Protein backbone atom coordinates (compact mmCIF):
# COMPACT_ATOMS: atom_id res chain seq x y z
CA UNK A 1 0.00 0.00 0.00
CA UNK A 2 1.16 3.53 -0.75
CA UNK A 3 1.36 6.28 1.86
CA UNK A 4 2.20 9.95 1.71
CA UNK A 5 3.06 11.30 5.15
CA UNK A 6 3.64 14.84 6.39
CA UNK A 7 7.14 15.22 7.77
CA UNK A 8 8.48 18.13 9.73
CA UNK A 9 11.24 18.33 12.27
CA UNK A 10 11.56 21.99 13.35
CA UNK A 11 15.17 21.38 14.43
CA UNK A 12 16.41 20.28 11.02
CA UNK A 13 13.78 21.11 8.38
CA UNK A 14 13.25 24.64 7.11
CA UNK A 15 9.73 23.69 6.03
CA UNK A 16 7.39 20.67 6.07
CA UNK A 17 7.39 18.15 3.22
CA UNK A 18 5.44 15.03 2.22
CA UNK A 19 7.32 11.71 2.24
CA UNK A 20 6.16 8.66 0.31
CA UNK A 21 6.25 5.16 1.79
CA UNK A 22 5.29 1.79 0.38
CA UNK A 23 4.27 -0.98 2.69
CA UNK A 24 3.44 -4.62 2.12
CA UNK A 25 0.38 -5.05 4.35
CA UNK A 26 -2.97 -6.78 4.04
CA UNK A 27 -5.65 -4.02 4.21
CA UNK A 28 -8.32 -6.44 5.43
CA UNK A 29 -8.37 -6.70 9.22
CA UNK A 30 -5.72 -4.05 9.83
CA UNK A 31 -6.18 -0.56 11.15
CA UNK A 32 -4.30 2.48 9.90
CA UNK A 33 -2.26 2.63 13.11
CA UNK A 34 -0.94 -0.90 12.43
CA UNK A 35 0.42 0.34 9.12
CA UNK A 36 1.91 3.49 10.66
CA UNK A 37 3.72 1.42 13.28
CA UNK A 38 5.13 -0.87 10.55
CA UNK A 39 6.31 2.24 8.67
CA UNK A 40 7.86 3.50 11.88
CA UNK A 41 9.69 0.17 12.18
CA UNK A 42 11.23 0.91 8.73
CA UNK A 43 11.89 4.57 9.45
CA UNK A 44 12.20 5.25 13.13
CA UNK A 45 12.48 9.03 12.61
CA UNK A 46 8.71 9.16 11.97
CA UNK A 47 6.94 10.62 15.00
CA UNK A 48 3.41 9.67 16.00
CA UNK A 49 1.47 9.62 19.26
CA UNK A 50 -0.50 6.56 20.27
CA UNK A 51 -1.34 4.65 23.40
CA UNK A 52 -4.39 2.40 23.81
CA UNK A 53 -4.70 1.42 20.13
CA UNK A 54 -8.47 0.99 20.46
CA UNK A 55 -10.06 4.43 20.19
CA UNK A 56 -10.21 5.15 23.90
CA UNK A 57 -7.21 7.34 24.72
CA UNK A 58 -7.58 9.80 21.84
CA UNK A 59 -3.83 10.11 21.22
CA UNK A 60 -3.61 9.32 17.51
CA UNK A 61 -5.98 11.89 16.06
CA UNK A 62 -4.70 12.94 12.63
CA UNK A 63 -5.86 14.11 9.24
CA UNK A 64 -6.42 10.99 7.13
CA UNK A 65 -7.04 11.60 3.42
CA UNK A 66 -8.31 15.07 4.25
CA UNK A 67 -10.54 14.04 7.13
CA UNK A 68 -9.76 14.01 10.84
CA UNK A 69 -9.97 10.68 12.62
CA UNK A 70 -8.25 8.24 14.93
CA UNK A 71 -5.71 6.06 13.13
CA UNK A 72 -6.33 3.15 15.51
CA UNK A 73 -10.01 2.78 14.62
CA UNK A 74 -9.76 3.60 10.91
CA UNK A 75 -9.78 0.38 8.85
CA UNK A 76 -7.08 0.37 6.16
CA UNK A 77 -9.50 -1.27 3.73
CA UNK A 78 -11.69 1.85 3.70
CA UNK A 79 -8.91 4.21 2.62
CA UNK A 80 -8.07 5.30 -0.91
CA UNK A 81 -4.41 5.16 -1.93
CA UNK A 82 -2.06 6.87 -1.59
CA UNK A 83 -3.16 7.31 2.01
CA UNK A 84 -2.27 10.90 2.89
CA UNK A 85 -1.56 11.57 6.55
CA UNK A 86 -1.15 15.03 8.02
CA UNK A 87 -1.17 16.36 11.58
CA UNK A 88 -4.42 17.86 12.93
CA UNK A 89 -4.77 21.33 11.44
CA UNK A 90 -4.92 24.52 13.45
CA UNK A 91 -2.51 23.43 16.18
CA UNK A 92 1.28 23.93 16.12
CA UNK A 93 3.25 20.91 14.89
CA UNK A 94 5.81 19.59 17.35
CA UNK A 95 7.09 17.02 14.90
CA UNK A 96 5.58 15.05 11.97
CA UNK A 97 2.10 13.90 13.07
CA UNK A 98 2.45 15.17 16.64
CA UNK A 99 0.78 18.48 17.50
CA UNK A 100 0.96 20.75 20.52
CA UNK A 101 -2.41 20.36 22.27
CA UNK A 102 -1.83 23.18 24.83
CA UNK A 103 -4.31 25.61 23.30
CA UNK A 104 -6.97 22.89 22.98
CA UNK A 105 -6.49 21.76 26.57
CA UNK A 106 -6.48 25.35 27.81
CA UNK A 107 -9.98 25.79 26.35
CA UNK A 108 -11.02 22.52 28.00
CA UNK A 109 -9.65 23.78 31.31
CA UNK A 110 -11.49 27.09 30.88
CA UNK A 111 -14.95 25.46 30.99
CA UNK A 112 -14.21 24.04 34.48
CA UNK A 113 -14.70 20.40 33.49
CA UNK A 114 -15.56 19.15 36.96
CA UNK A 115 -18.64 19.10 39.20
CA UNK A 116 -19.12 22.25 41.24
CA UNK A 117 -21.24 21.36 44.26
CA UNK A 118 -21.20 23.40 47.43
CA UNK A 119 -23.06 20.90 49.63
CA UNK A 120 -21.05 19.05 52.20
CA UNK A 121 -20.59 15.52 50.92
CA UNK A 122 -22.51 12.97 52.97
CA UNK A 123 -20.65 10.64 55.28
CA UNK A 124 -21.60 7.38 53.65
CA UNK A 125 -23.70 8.44 50.64
CA UNK A 126 -22.53 9.41 47.19
CA UNK A 127 -24.18 12.25 45.27
CA UNK A 128 -27.09 10.28 43.89
CA UNK A 129 -28.64 10.75 40.48
CA UNK A 130 -31.84 9.31 39.02
CA UNK A 131 -31.49 7.08 35.95
CA UNK A 132 -33.30 9.81 33.95
CA UNK A 133 -30.82 12.47 35.03
CA UNK A 134 -27.94 10.13 34.35
CA UNK A 135 -29.30 9.51 30.85
CA UNK A 136 -28.92 13.22 30.09
CA UNK A 137 -25.16 12.72 30.12
CA UNK A 138 -25.26 10.13 27.35
CA UNK A 139 -23.66 11.46 24.19
CA UNK A 140 -21.62 13.90 26.28
CA UNK A 141 -19.45 11.97 28.72
CA UNK A 142 -18.01 9.73 26.00
CA UNK A 143 -15.74 12.48 24.62
CA UNK A 144 -12.09 11.40 24.76
CA UNK A 145 -10.59 14.82 23.92
CA UNK A 146 -8.85 13.62 20.77
CA UNK A 147 -9.30 17.11 19.24
CA UNK A 148 -10.49 15.73 15.88
CA UNK A 149 -13.61 17.94 16.04
CA UNK A 150 -12.03 21.18 17.23
CA UNK A 151 -9.24 21.02 14.67
CA UNK A 152 -11.80 20.37 11.89
CA UNK A 153 -13.74 23.50 12.87
CA UNK A 154 -13.15 26.59 10.68
CA UNK A 155 -14.28 28.84 13.53
CA UNK A 156 -11.45 27.40 15.63
CA UNK A 157 -8.98 27.89 12.76
CA UNK A 158 -9.89 31.60 12.54
CA UNK A 159 -10.03 32.29 16.30
CA UNK A 160 -8.10 29.50 18.05
CA UNK A 161 -7.21 31.74 20.98
CA UNK A 162 -10.77 32.82 21.77
CA UNK A 163 -13.30 30.25 20.51
CA UNK A 164 -13.66 27.38 22.97
CA UNK A 165 -14.27 24.92 20.14
CA UNK A 166 -16.69 22.00 19.81
CA UNK A 167 -14.88 19.67 22.22
CA UNK A 168 -14.67 22.29 24.98
CA UNK A 169 -18.31 23.31 24.48
CA UNK A 170 -19.50 19.69 24.49
CA UNK A 171 -17.67 19.25 27.81
CA UNK A 172 -19.13 22.52 29.09
CA UNK A 173 -22.62 21.21 28.36
CA UNK A 174 -21.76 17.85 29.95
CA UNK A 175 -21.45 19.69 33.30
CA UNK A 176 -24.35 22.06 32.61
CA UNK A 177 -26.55 19.00 32.03
CA UNK A 178 -25.39 17.22 35.18
CA UNK A 179 -28.08 17.26 37.89
CA UNK A 180 -25.38 17.18 40.58
CA UNK A 181 -23.75 20.41 39.41
CA UNK A 182 -24.71 23.68 41.12
CA UNK A 183 -22.91 26.21 38.93
CA UNK A 184 -25.33 26.43 36.00
CA UNK A 185 -25.50 30.23 35.93
CA UNK A 186 -21.77 30.75 36.41
CA UNK A 187 -21.17 28.35 33.54
CA UNK A 188 -23.68 30.18 31.31
CA UNK A 189 -22.14 33.54 32.30
CA UNK A 190 -18.74 32.26 31.27
CA UNK A 191 -19.96 30.98 27.91
CA UNK A 192 -22.15 33.90 26.87
CA UNK A 193 -19.52 35.63 24.85
CA UNK A 194 -19.33 36.57 21.18
CA UNK A 195 -16.06 34.66 20.84
CA UNK A 196 -16.15 31.84 23.38
CA UNK A 197 -19.52 30.42 22.24
CA UNK A 198 -20.94 32.46 19.38
CA UNK A 199 -18.16 31.83 16.86
CA UNK A 200 -20.00 28.53 16.27
CA UNK A 201 -21.94 28.93 13.03
CA UNK A 202 -23.29 25.36 12.99
CA UNK A 203 -20.88 24.27 10.25
CA UNK A 204 -21.06 20.77 11.77
CA UNK A 205 -17.62 19.53 10.71
CA UNK A 206 -17.35 18.43 14.36
CA UNK A 207 -20.34 16.10 14.03
CA UNK A 208 -18.99 14.80 10.73
CA UNK A 209 -15.58 13.76 12.06
CA UNK A 210 -16.17 12.73 15.70
CA UNK A 211 -14.72 9.20 16.01
CA UNK A 212 -17.08 8.53 18.92
CA UNK A 213 -20.17 9.61 16.95
CA UNK A 214 -20.96 12.51 19.30
CA UNK A 215 -22.82 15.68 18.37
CA UNK A 216 -21.14 18.88 19.67
CA UNK A 217 -23.42 21.07 17.50
CA UNK A 218 -26.44 19.73 19.37
CA UNK A 219 -24.78 20.37 22.74
CA UNK A 220 -23.97 23.94 21.63
CA UNK A 221 -27.59 24.34 20.54
CA UNK A 222 -28.73 23.27 24.01
CA UNK A 223 -26.42 25.82 25.63
CA UNK A 224 -27.96 28.49 23.38
CA UNK A 225 -31.48 27.33 24.31
CA UNK A 226 -30.63 27.71 28.01
CA UNK A 227 -29.25 31.19 27.36
CA UNK A 228 -32.45 32.10 25.50
CA UNK A 229 -34.58 30.78 28.38
CA UNK A 230 -32.51 32.79 30.79
CA UNK A 231 -32.79 36.01 28.82
CA UNK A 232 -36.41 36.17 27.62
Amino acid at each position, binding site marked *: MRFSIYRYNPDTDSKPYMQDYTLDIEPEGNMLLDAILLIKAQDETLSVRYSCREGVCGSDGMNINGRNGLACVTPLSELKQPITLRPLSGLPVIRDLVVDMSQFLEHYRSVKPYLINHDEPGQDVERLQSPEDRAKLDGLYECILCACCTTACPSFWWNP*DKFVGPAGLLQAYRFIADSRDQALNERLDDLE*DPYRLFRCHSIMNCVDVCPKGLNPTQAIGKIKSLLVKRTI
Partner: protein
Amino acid sequence: MVSRVPSGDRYGIKDWLVQRLTAVVMAVYTLFMTGYLLWQPVSNFAGWQELFHSLPVRLFSLIFLLSLFLHAWLGMRDIFMDYVHATLIRLGLYALVILALVAYAAWAVRILWGPA
Protein backbone atom coordinates in the same frame (compact mmCIF):
# COMPACT_ATOMS: atom_id res chain seq x y z
CA MET B 1 2.28 28.27 23.69
CA VAL B 2 -1.09 29.48 24.91
CA SER B 3 -1.54 33.18 24.39
CA ARG B 4 -3.29 35.28 26.99
CA VAL B 5 -6.15 37.12 25.29
CA PRO B 6 -8.85 39.30 26.77
CA SER B 7 -12.25 37.64 26.25
CA GLY B 8 -15.55 37.22 28.07
CA ASP B 9 -17.72 40.13 26.99
CA ARG B 10 -20.98 38.62 28.31
CA TYR B 11 -23.20 39.30 25.33
CA GLY B 12 -24.32 37.40 22.30
CA ILE B 13 -27.56 35.55 22.96
CA LYS B 14 -29.76 38.54 22.14
CA ASP B 15 -27.91 39.11 18.88
CA TRP B 16 -28.21 35.43 18.08
CA LEU B 17 -31.94 35.55 18.79
CA VAL B 18 -32.45 38.76 16.78
CA GLN B 19 -30.66 37.15 13.82
CA ARG B 20 -33.15 34.28 13.91
CA LEU B 21 -36.24 36.43 14.46
CA THR B 22 -35.32 38.76 11.59
CA ALA B 23 -34.83 35.69 9.39
CA VAL B 24 -38.39 34.62 10.24
CA VAL B 25 -39.74 38.09 9.39
CA MET B 26 -37.93 38.03 6.04
CA ALA B 27 -39.22 34.52 5.27
CA VAL B 28 -42.81 35.53 6.07
CA TYR B 29 -42.54 38.69 3.94
CA THR B 30 -41.04 36.75 1.04
CA LEU B 31 -43.85 34.16 1.21
CA PHE B 32 -46.48 36.91 1.49
CA MET B 33 -45.14 38.87 -1.47
CA THR B 34 -44.61 35.78 -3.64
CA GLY B 35 -48.11 34.54 -2.81
CA TYR B 36 -49.68 37.93 -3.40
CA LEU B 37 -47.95 38.45 -6.75
CA LEU B 38 -48.86 34.95 -7.91
CA TRP B 39 -52.46 35.52 -6.90
CA GLN B 40 -52.67 39.06 -8.27
CA PRO B 41 -49.89 39.65 -10.82
CA VAL B 42 -48.73 43.25 -11.17
CA SER B 43 -47.76 44.16 -14.71
CA ASN B 44 -47.38 47.92 -14.83
CA PHE B 45 -46.28 50.94 -12.79
CA ALA B 46 -49.83 51.82 -11.81
CA GLY B 47 -50.25 48.35 -10.34
CA TRP B 48 -47.09 48.70 -8.24
CA GLN B 49 -48.21 52.15 -7.13
CA GLU B 50 -51.55 50.81 -6.01
CA LEU B 51 -49.96 47.92 -4.13
CA PHE B 52 -47.60 50.23 -2.23
CA HIS B 53 -50.30 52.81 -1.64
CA SER B 54 -51.68 50.54 1.06
CA LEU B 55 -50.32 51.41 4.53
CA PRO B 56 -50.07 47.77 5.75
CA VAL B 57 -47.93 46.87 2.71
CA ARG B 58 -45.68 49.88 3.31
CA LEU B 59 -45.33 49.07 7.01
CA PHE B 60 -44.68 45.38 6.34
CA SER B 61 -42.12 46.35 3.70
CA LEU B 62 -40.39 48.69 6.14
CA ILE B 63 -40.33 46.00 8.83
CA PHE B 64 -38.91 43.60 6.25
CA LEU B 65 -36.20 46.05 5.22
CA LEU B 66 -35.28 46.93 8.82
CA SER B 67 -35.08 43.19 9.58
CA LEU B 68 -32.84 42.76 6.55
CA PHE B 69 -30.51 45.57 7.67
CA LEU B 70 -30.32 44.28 11.24
CA HIS B 71 -29.71 40.75 9.96
CA ALA B 72 -27.04 42.07 7.60
CA TRP B 73 -25.33 43.97 10.42
CA LEU B 74 -25.12 40.87 12.63
CA GLY B 75 -23.95 38.74 9.70
CA MET B 76 -21.30 41.23 8.58
CA ARG B 77 -20.09 41.66 12.17
CA ASP B 78 -19.75 37.87 12.45
CA ILE B 79 -17.75 37.72 9.23
CA PHE B 80 -15.41 40.49 10.41
CA MET B 81 -14.99 38.80 13.80
CA ASP B 82 -14.05 35.59 12.03
CA TYR B 83 -11.65 36.95 9.45
CA VAL B 84 -10.44 40.44 10.35
CA HIS B 85 -8.22 40.25 13.40
CA ALA B 86 -6.65 43.72 13.43
CA THR B 87 -8.83 45.60 15.91
CA LEU B 88 -8.64 49.02 14.25
CA ILE B 89 -9.44 47.69 10.78
CA ARG B 90 -12.35 45.70 12.22
CA LEU B 91 -13.67 48.80 13.96
CA GLY B 92 -13.40 50.77 10.71
CA LEU B 93 -15.29 48.07 8.81
CA TYR B 94 -18.00 47.99 11.51
CA ALA B 95 -18.39 51.75 11.15
CA LEU B 96 -18.64 51.54 7.35
CA VAL B 97 -21.30 48.82 7.50
CA ILE B 98 -23.31 50.71 10.16
CA LEU B 99 -23.17 53.94 8.17
CA ALA B 100 -24.24 52.16 4.98
CA LEU B 101 -27.12 50.35 6.71
CA VAL B 102 -28.40 53.49 8.45
CA ALA B 103 -28.29 55.28 5.10
CA TYR B 104 -30.18 52.39 3.48
CA ALA B 105 -32.82 52.56 6.23
CA ALA B 106 -33.33 56.29 5.67
CA TRP B 107 -33.44 55.69 1.92
CA ALA B 108 -36.01 52.91 2.40
CA VAL B 109 -38.30 55.27 4.34
CA ARG B 110 -37.92 57.88 1.60
CA ILE B 111 -38.76 55.36 -1.11
CA LEU B 112 -41.80 53.99 0.74
CA TRP B 113 -43.21 57.33 1.90
CA GLY B 114 -41.71 59.78 -0.56
CA PRO B 115 -43.55 61.39 -3.46
CA ALA B 116 -44.80 58.70 -5.82
